[in-house]
């Protein structure tokens, strides 16, 4: 009976005919299609297909026009003017400046409580104004060198009618390269190519090339990887270390059985994993701790062999930290910002520094103990590796594992002295990372979880905020990073890589250090290739 049922089901599962859909899995699922609520990568990837903003980033992270055909900035840096291209929403209505204004007003509206509101933080109240149907002006409260980059985030997308008279959670109100054909939450989402999309490729062919995209929401990484191997999925992103071992040998080369079946696309990711230390004495005393000397934190950083951490814990899918700002950030490549001394593996210097403070593994030095490192279960292995590494230097830390949400909450409330976090670039500017050391953004009122506060760092940050993009601004930010890393409120560990594995039959893959998903140029490779 079972065999009969199985056979019947097998026969019933015919592949869909006609349309050639590019399929991938989004294991965290998608709960809303609203661009303003896109806070995780997988939602942003769908938003990338359905929506567009005035501007976008190219693969080299330069700001280029999208729905805006051209744009200009006033000399005082306070007014941005945009002229819209001739584009249409997916229902056929033309895009007007009023749609852009309404989208931005909705994003700013406190009653909407939209997580993407921060991208328009610099826009004056009622600072968006339509000038006719095809032009608009945005007035800022102060010059903001990263404002154009912020307009290229998915949260700053343009919605039909601003999303006011529809349900952006469930409806497609966009102009993007693909339009929504169906969405079954927790199961799948199907998009078809937008036939009226404005962009063309180098040969003048209309984009996108694909018939459509199918996104499945399979929670199990094992099922996703199996689906990829069996050809059900055409692309996977950042497989876990055990899967990297399955695909690649110890020289990071494809194992023979996968050679020619899949392509690996890799680039530096604008992301830093770090260990944070609470540095504010009042906050520490509230949890019964006293501050730890910056030398000790620096020593603990130099004690770490990041190469081996990356090899063991990330299966090579990351690069040892070069500083707090990842080297993929414009102006922070290894040639422009050499690896900071405090993140180099130097056990002797680490021992020397610790000894100066009476800490060490050998008599007469004292062991430093009773310090707690809070972590969520997913990163408990890292905590154990650090515990082991630091024990050799006479520093004993206790590990406190809590469920992810509780861990995040206690870090935000300053209830753990040491914690693990990561920061992912929202926009390609070092200020996005160094803003974590802004004294005005102390957690829980912002992401300054270490409660770092330093007048020099604050003044460098405001100097950077006044400087327009260019070498001067980059050097201010580099100076700020050097300054902060002297007192080491954070120990940077590694920078992930963006790794996309794509079935070889697809060409035209584009990858960028902020890990957005651009499927516009993807097409099926001709058979003879």
């Amino acid at each position, binding site marked *: *009976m*079972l065999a009969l*049922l*199985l056979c019947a*089901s*097998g*026969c*019933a*599962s015919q592949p*869909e*005919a006609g*349309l050639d*859909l590019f399929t991938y899995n989004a294991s965290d*699922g998608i*709960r*809303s299609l609203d661009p303003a*609520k896109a*806070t995780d990568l997988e939602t942003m990837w769908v938003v990338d297909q359905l929506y567009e903003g005035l501007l976008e980033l190219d693969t080299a992270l330069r700001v280029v026009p999208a729905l805006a055909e051209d744009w200009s900035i006033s000399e005082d840096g306070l007014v941005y003017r945009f002229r819209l291209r001739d584009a249409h929403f997916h229902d056929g209505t033309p895009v007007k400046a009023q749609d852009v204004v309404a989208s931005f007003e909705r994003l700013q509206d*406190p*009653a*909407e*409580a939209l*997580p*993407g*509101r*921060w991208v328009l933080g610099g826009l004056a109240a009622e600072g968006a104004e339509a000038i006719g149907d095809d032009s608009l002006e945005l007035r800022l409260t102060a010059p903001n060198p990263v404002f154009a980059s912020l307009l290229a985030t998915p949260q700053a997308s343009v919605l039909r009618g601003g999303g006011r008279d529809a349900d952006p*959670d469930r409806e497609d109100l966009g102009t993007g390269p693909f339009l*929504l*054909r*169906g*969405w*079954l*939450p*927790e*199961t*799948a*989402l*199907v998009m*078809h190519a937008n036939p009226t999309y404005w962009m063309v490729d180098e040969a003048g062919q209309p984009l996108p090339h694909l018939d459509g995209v*199918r996104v499945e929401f*399979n*929670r*199990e990484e*094992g*099922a996703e990887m*199996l*689906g990829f191997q*069996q050809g059900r999925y055409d692309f996977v992103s950042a497989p876990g270390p055990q899967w990297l071992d399955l695909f690649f040998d110890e020289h990071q080369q494809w194992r023979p059985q996968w050679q020619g079946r899949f392509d690996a696309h890799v680039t530096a990711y604008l992301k830093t994993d770090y260990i944070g230390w609470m540095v504010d004495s009042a906050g520490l005393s509230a949890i019964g701790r006293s501050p730890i000397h910056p030398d000790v934190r620096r020593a603990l950083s130099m004690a770490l062999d990041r190469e081996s951490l990356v090899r063991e814990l990330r299966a090579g899918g990351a690069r040892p930290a070069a500083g707090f700002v990842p080297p993929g950030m414009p102006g922070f490549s290894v040639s422009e910002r050499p690896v900071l001394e405090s993140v180099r593996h130097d056990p002797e210097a680490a021992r020397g520094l610790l000894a100066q403070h009476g800490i060490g593994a050998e008599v007469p030095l004292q062991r430093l103990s009773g310090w707690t490192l809070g972590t969520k279960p997913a990163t408990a292995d890292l905590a154990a590796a650090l515990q082991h590494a630091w024990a050799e230097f006479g520093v004993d830390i206790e590990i406190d594992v809590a*469920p992810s*949400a*509780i861990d*995040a*909450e206690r870090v*935000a409330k300053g209830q753990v002295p040491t914690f693990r976090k990561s920061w992912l670039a*929202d926009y390609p500017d070092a200020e996005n990372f160094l803003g974590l050391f802004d004294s005005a953004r102390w*957690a*829980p*009122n*912002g*992401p300054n979880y270490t409660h770092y506060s330093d007048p020099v760092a604050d003044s460098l940050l405001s100097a950077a905020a006044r400087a327009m993009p260019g070498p001067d601004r980059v050097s201010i930010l580099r100076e700020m990073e050097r300054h902060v890393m002297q007192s080491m409120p954070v120990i940077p560990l590694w920078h992930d890589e963006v790794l996309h594995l794509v079935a070889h039959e697809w060409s035209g893959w584009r990858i960028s250090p902020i890990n957005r998903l651009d499927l516009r140029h993807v097409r099926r490779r001709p058979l003879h290739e």
Partner: protein
Amino acid sequence: MSRFGRGLAVVWGSFTLVFLMFTAVPDPARQLAGQQADPSVIADLRAQFGLDLPVHERYFNLLSGLSPLGPTEAGWGWRWPSLGRSYVRPEGVGELLLDAFPATLLLAGTAMLMALLLGIPLGLMAARKPGSAWDRILVGGSVLGMSAPSFFMAVLIGYLFAVRWGHWTGLPLTGSLWDLGANGERVLAWRNLLLPTLTLGMRPLAVLAQLTRGAALEVLEAPHVRTARAFGAGPSEVIWRHVFRNAMNPVLTSASGWLAQLLAGAVFVEFVFGWRGLGFLLFDALEQQDLPVVMGGVMLVSLVFVLVNGLTDRAYRWLDPRAAEA
């Protein structure tokens, strides 16, 4: 207390217990706000969901939403009880539950059906020749089926039928009742029901086969069966005409009690096979600290348990009037 009152108390108790447990964990506002953790957005999100209110007010608001009598657009009056809105999804809790519950019922129902359709004939066949090779295989197999933990069976069944023999069976490791076609249309994917049904139905199948076998063996010794044999009835006629009906009483009584257990077991099986039912929804809601969905789900499950218990009680009393007097 009346039966109805007791049932209501159980539902209210589980509602309150879940609410109290959730007061100990952080609300999801910070998670929803993303890594920028903009304090004004967090505050606005809390205000939107009423999370900024004192605990007792939040409890009262949730509870009063359930009342069919309350403020409506046209003053006080009758209204649909509301389970509130999900914190993380655009849908209302009622809508989410209505969407997920039928899939769970279907899974539990087909698992039960499989157990009945296979378990009873298998048990009867074993009872025909006690001690035979077939009987021993069945007894051994059913002991295995009863004792194997469902998480182990789920992984094993998934591995065998979807991974190892996947190219032959054409079955995916995970999937739901509904899928999307290439044009974005909803299509039924019955094949996705097979593996979770097999996993979930395994235990009741084993129990029913054993139970049927035991009951049939007892009936086979009954005087009316011996008489039938003496009158020349063949083994098949004995089993189907004289044993089957009499052996079914204890079997069916036990089967009715299984439905509630199956619903509970479905939670885990749904998660493993990605079957988008009530269990899957609850699991996800717990992960997202989505209190309204968890509360709605738990209330629904407790309501089903109360109903099934009530029905089983009635069935007992109908079958055996002595139970009503006790």
